[in-house]
């Protein structure tokens, strides 16, 4: 088989990022070179991923690239492989898109920092690590890339020397994250001891026939390891610290990309390596973890007083949605989870970037100190609104479509299994969505609307070079919401099919027929059919919206315009009504905003707030206990 030119793209898209990292370090003196190299690396990586859509997504090819040309010999994969199927490519596109937009944003954003060359070196290392994970077909390679990525992420978290919390956050991140890394390593060792190979495809072919307690332990360890990278409960506190302390463009990567590698890892472990996802016990476990993550973190988010920390908790809450949906093991559930994964990257990226813009302009992200910025930064406020509507699932933005699918998938699962538990998961997901909305109303009221403190009188709109990536993200938020059909055709459909079709993945690496020869049962679902229980046609809905909006606009134009707006001087007519008093600054503090809710939930919220006490040892204890529980759960129920 002659190699097509595009078969080199996976390795090149990783190499270009790492090469960029070294070149940036080499040319660290020149600002132009730094910008140029970074741009070339991130754009090149993204372009190569896009170029792979046609062969992988549309033609259904699986690209297997053996480094050094060491193809499998005698049924054993001795070389290191890069294997790109639709799932890998899906995450690859998602990652490179976030890296590209966030990278473009960083050029201006890091202007206030020192040592910017190191920032871009680490940034590209982080990006390369993530790309390496999602494109690799070798388990140990994934581990190494995981460590590269974690290392870069920790360094970037601690990067802002003027942020007093950065070191603490980075340290906790490193320590608690090391539980995950250790679990992954131990899991890999156990798998190697049983299967004598590190190739993903071969392991997944052999694992079923070699199932024994140590393989089960390896499954539990790998699950927890990748779960740590996805910051599932109870590993969430470190995520909140790290997201908040890191520069915003890095937070975009940590929340939109880093966590996605965890999700990707869980897909690989549960659907490919061990193929345990078919078991009801595993489904229950994953859905349980997902639901707890989504509800617990959204209530934690309601308690926050810092814009970025709030976003961080939401990030984990959304990961909870993704895990819940993926844990259902139905075609609709997988499609919904993957859809939510890409939506999460887009809207959470957008929100982090707006938070960064606020930080850039005002120097703080404390909700209590801000207010009324929409007058000074109208575009940023509009972008924030788009992000907030997307994440809370307001139609026609993208968050709605994926949540809609998740509700259906969970409820359908409930119908299928006859268990009311899954129905309650649907309810929980809806409630979480409302609470998400509530906390973004809080941010909107405290940061962009409400009254403006006097010290922000001279705040300027975000610079254009930062606005452009944000507008692109906002446009994508709307586009992915309006064009689900295209999303299904080009991204989600093939990816869902690939998740359910592990034999094809195996055969592509090991030669045709290998899977059939090694696996006792071949549950092959080559072409999943995604059926919706309800109806939703965003485009025609938009048409309606436009028609009616036009009618209303016409009507309001026809009625005589009687708008009076104040000039520069505030006269008493246009003054805020304050019960007749002269207007003085008085803003409802963000902590008191949902008093009616908090009062009723005070015991729960107080308990949660006390539990997240910031002591590293306790977070480690949670992690280790969680690890132990999951291991025990696996041994009892599987």
């Amino acid at each position, binding site marked *: 088989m002659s190699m097509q030119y595009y078969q080199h793209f996976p390795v090149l898209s990783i190499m270009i990022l790492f090469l960029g990292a070294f070149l940036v370090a080499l040319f660290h003196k020149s600002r132009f070179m730094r910008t140029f190299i970074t741009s070339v690396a991130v754009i090149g990586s993204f372009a190569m991923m896009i170029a792979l859509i046609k062969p992988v997504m549309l033609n259904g090819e699986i690209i297997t690239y053996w480094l050094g040309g060491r193809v499998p010999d005698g049924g054993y994969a001795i070389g290191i492989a890069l294997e790109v199927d639709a799932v890998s490519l899906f995450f690859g596109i998602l990652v490179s898109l976030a890296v590209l937009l966030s990278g473009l944003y960083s050029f201006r954003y890091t202007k206030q920092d020192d040592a910017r060359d190191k920032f871009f070196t680490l940034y590209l290392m982080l990006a390369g690590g993530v790309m390496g994970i999602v494109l690799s077909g070798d388990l140990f390679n994934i581990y190494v890339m995981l460590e590269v990525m974690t290392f870069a992420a920790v360094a970037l978290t601690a990067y802002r020397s003027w942020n007093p919390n950065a070191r603490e956050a*980075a340290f906790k991140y490193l320590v608690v994250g090391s*539980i995950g890394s250790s679990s992954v*390593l131990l899991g890999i060792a156990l798998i190697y001891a049983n299967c004598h190979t590190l190739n993903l495809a071969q392991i997944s072919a052999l694992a079923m026939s070699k199932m024994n307690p140590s393989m089960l332990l390896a499954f539990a360890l790998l699950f927890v390891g990748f779960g740590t990278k996805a910051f599932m409960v109870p590993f969430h506190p470190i995520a909140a610290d790290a997201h908040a302390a890191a520069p915003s463009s890095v937070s975009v990567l940590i929340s939109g990309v880093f966590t996605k590698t965890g999700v990707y890892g869980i897909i690989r472990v549960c659907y490919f390596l061990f193929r345990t996802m078919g078991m009801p016990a595993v489904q229950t476990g994953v859905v349980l973890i997902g639901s707890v993550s989504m509800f617990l973190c959204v209530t934690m988010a309601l308690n926050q007083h810092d814009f970025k920390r709030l976003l961080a908790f939401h990030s984990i809450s959304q990961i909870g949605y993704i895990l819940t949906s993926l844990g259902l093991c139905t075609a609709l559930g997988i499609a919904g989870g993957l859809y939510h994964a890409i939506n999460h990257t887009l809207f959470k990226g957008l929100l982090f970037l707006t938070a960064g813009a606020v930080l850039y302009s005002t120097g703080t992200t404390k909700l209590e100190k801000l207010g009324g910025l929409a007058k000074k930064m109208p575009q940023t406020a509009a972008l924030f609104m788009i992000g907030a509507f997307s994440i809370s699932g307001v139609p026609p933005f993208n968050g709605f479509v994926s949540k809609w699918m998740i509700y259906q998938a969970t409820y359908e699962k409930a119908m299928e299994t006859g268990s009311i538990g899954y129905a309650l998961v649907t309810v929980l997901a809806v409630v979480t969505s409302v609470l998400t909305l509530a906390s973004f109303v809080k941010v909107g009221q405290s940061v962009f609307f409400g009254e403006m403190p006097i010290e922000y009188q001279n705040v300027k709109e975000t610079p254009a070079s930062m606005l452009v990536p944000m507008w692109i993200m906002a446009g994508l938020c709307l586009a992915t919401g309006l064009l689900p059909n295209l999303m299904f055709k080009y991204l989600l459909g093939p990816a869902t099919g690939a998740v359910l079709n592990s034999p094809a993945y195996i055969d592509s690496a090991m030669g045709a027929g290998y899977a059939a020869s090694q696996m006792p049962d071949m549950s092959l679902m080559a072409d999943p059919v995604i059926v919706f229980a309800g109806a939703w046609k965003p485009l025609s809905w938009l048409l309606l919206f436009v028609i009616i909006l036009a009618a209303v606009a016409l009507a309001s134009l026809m009625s005589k315009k009687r708008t009076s707006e104040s000039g520069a001087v505030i006269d008493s007519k246009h003054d805020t009504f304050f019960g007749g008093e002269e207007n003085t600054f008085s803003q409802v503090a963000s902590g008191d905003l949902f008093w009616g809710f908090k009062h009723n939930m005070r015991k729960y919220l107080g308990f949660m707030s006390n539990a997240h006490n*910031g002591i*590293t*040892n306790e977070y*480690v204890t949670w992690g280790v206990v969680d690890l132990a529980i999951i291991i025990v759960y696996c041994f009892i129920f599987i």
Partner: protein
Amino acid sequence: MIVANYIGAILLVAIGFYAMMTNPNIIRIVVGMNIVDYGLNLMIVSVGFNQGGTAPIYTLGELTSGMYFVDPIPQALTLTSIVIGACVTAMSIALCIKMYSEYGTLDARQIRRLHG
């Protein structure tokens, strides 16, 4: 013999986690991380160990029938893992130094500006 290695590895991991869970001194937490690492390294090396096997470095002339090797891949993995462990340790110690100068203490119970 190899069983002793496994038990030792598990013990090391357990000791490391115990240290991380109970010691409030952040330097000792880092030490705990290292102990976990060593446990894992021991584990991986033991996985590839063959009783009586020789080192997997040979020339064709030395090859005799009945000769067998220890698995070289786990050793390579261990090397990688040691390197990574060293990097992580360096990083965390660097952070500890910075934190000590910022907080004036190494006590994890007092390094908790981020909470709630």
